[in-house]
């Protein structure tokens, strides 16, 4: 991914024009114009997404797959149309491979409970990396408790990069499942997922990629990657919250039992026997989040109208600028200096706890994430309780980087 980024010629990218699509960016915070540097936690939504959701709610809403009446058909068309939009966005073979979930966390839990739990037993191994978000640790710990299998963790170096050789050494015939982030949320590290997938599959393991932080910053082609499962969230891709996608290879999904039971995931129900619905609905029990799906499809339209590669190149320029600017500040230590990074910049300031830093930046209108970023093992590795994290999206500008640097100066004054 990152290799492609550096090769791309910088296309014209008008971030000022992009900003006008995001009304929330006009907010004043504590007397200052908002400087939103927390897109890795949740990105903002552009007008086309807000309008698509409003349009669905105003003109097309009823329950899906149920009624013969006009609105139910309109809702079904909107919902299934969104599925097809998503299939194209990640280049899946079929909409049967696109399961709507609440978000990345639910996608991982679905695979943990419906794929791993019925198959794994004592002696089997699940392999993750030391960079994972809690959502890609805890579901596997639960499976280990349920089945007696073992969780293995591939280590990282001080730059925040996966030690690929160590990862390869941990692979063995007992490795049944590998679950890895595509991009680390805490440090921004881009993992070599294609290589990881190939190596794991050569041992017969299936691979789940947590793509929550990758999809907003790169073109993801699930077939080119060869991923068995790939999951991501809508709200980090300029779409709504409460909607996400689990991609799975059809033959794997077809062989899995349902996860949750309920309406929409069945064909026939009697007290003696229930037959389950076909893919993808087998995994979508209950009335789904239709407006969320419509909003996510609109977000994908929006991202492609700007150009995924153009957004990525713009973000990389901001990341490089911010990295260079912060590196010049003597009190700042940048945490995570991987060769390939997405637009996430984690840092600490000497003598100022990240929590205090977050408050001071907020007083200047600058929104950053502070804390352990739901990646406590990463913090432990670096011997830190927390970091501050600035992350950049399509609407950020060089001015935002300057505001961050200025606000850090303010923090140094307060704690002088």
């Amino acid at each position, binding site marked *: 991914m990152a290799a492609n980024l550096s090769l791309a010629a910088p296309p014209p990218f008008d971030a000022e024009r992009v900003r006008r699509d995001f009304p929330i960016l006009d907010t004043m915070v504590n007397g200052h114009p908002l400087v939103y540097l927390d897109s890795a936690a949740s990105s903002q939504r552009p007008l086309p997404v807000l309008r698509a959701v409003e349009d669905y709610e105003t003109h097309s809403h009823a329950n899906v797959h149920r009624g013969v009446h006009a609105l139910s058909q309109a809702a079904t068309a909107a919902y299934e149309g969104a599925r097809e939009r998503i299939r194209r966005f990640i280049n899946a073979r079929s909409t049967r491979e696109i399961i709507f979930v609440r978000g990345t966390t639910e996608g991982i839990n679905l695979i943990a409970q419906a794929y791993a739990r019925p198959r794994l037993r004592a002696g089997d191994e699940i392999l993750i990396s030391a960079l994972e978000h809690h959502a890609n640790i805890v579901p596997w710990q639960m499976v280990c408790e349920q089945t007696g299998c073992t969780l293995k963790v591939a280590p990282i170096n001080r730059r925040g990069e996966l030690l690929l050789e160590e990862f390869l050494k941990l692979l063995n015939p007992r490795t049944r499942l590998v679950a890895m982030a595509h991009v680390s949320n805490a440090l921004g590290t881009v993992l070599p997922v294609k290589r990881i997938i190939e190596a794991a599959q050569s041992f017969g393991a299936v691979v789940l990629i947590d793509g929550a932080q990758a999809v907003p910053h790169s073109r993801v082609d699930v077939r080119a990657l060869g991923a068995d499962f790939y999951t991501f969230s809508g709200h980090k891709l300029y779409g709504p919250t409460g909607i996400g996608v689990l991609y799975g290879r059809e033959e794997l999904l077809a062989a899995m039992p349902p996860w949750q039971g309920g309406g929409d995931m069945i064909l026939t129900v009697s007290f003696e026997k229930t037959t389950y619905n076909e893919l993808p609905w087998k995994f979508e029990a209950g009335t789904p989040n239709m407006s969320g799906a419509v909003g996510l499809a609109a977000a994908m339209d929006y991202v492609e109208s700007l150009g995924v590669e153009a957004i990525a190149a713009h973000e990389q320029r901001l990341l490089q600028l911010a990295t260079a600017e912060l590196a010049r500040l003597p009190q700042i230590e940048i945490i995570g200096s991987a060769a390939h990074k997405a637009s996430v910049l984690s840092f600490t300031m000497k003598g100022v706890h990240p929590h205090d830093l977050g*408050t001071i930046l907020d*007083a200047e209108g600058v929104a950053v994430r502070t804390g352990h970023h739901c990646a*406590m093992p990463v913090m432990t590795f670096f011997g830190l309780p927390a970091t501050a994290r600035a992350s950049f999206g399509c609407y950020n500008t060089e001015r935002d980087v300057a505001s961050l640097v200025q606000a850090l100066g303010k923090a140094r004054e307060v704690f002088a």
Partner: protein
Amino acid sequence: MDLKELYRDVILDHNRHPRNFGRIEPADGRAEGHNPLCGDRLSVFVVLDGERVADIRFEGRGCAISTASASLMTEAVKGKDRTAIRALFDKVHALLTHPDAAPDGALGKLAALAGVREFPVRVKCASLCWHTLNAALEHGAATISTE
């Protein structure tokens, strides 16, 4: 929103030079406090003389508000009995959470925490040490959490 109200000189001083910092072993009471949202942890150790806190220390790692609050607390409660400490905690709690609470004269230096109430997400930083002390006095040994 005035940062100078939050980060008063007394707060910055106690953050930089926390008083009564360290462990007491053996202690008559000890407890650990944890704020899972920000990862802050602190331990409080007390030596009792009957109902009176004869000595107190704390150690841990946290933001300026939590460190300064713990440092100020240890100075304020040393030599006081349980009843007086409970009354003081009530006053601190009111100071941190009631929008109009006028600083009570009994608070002394603790009144420097008044600015925290303008920053609701930071109230837990300031109150963590008091909940931890409470646990150390009530249970002898415990772990408490802000969540």
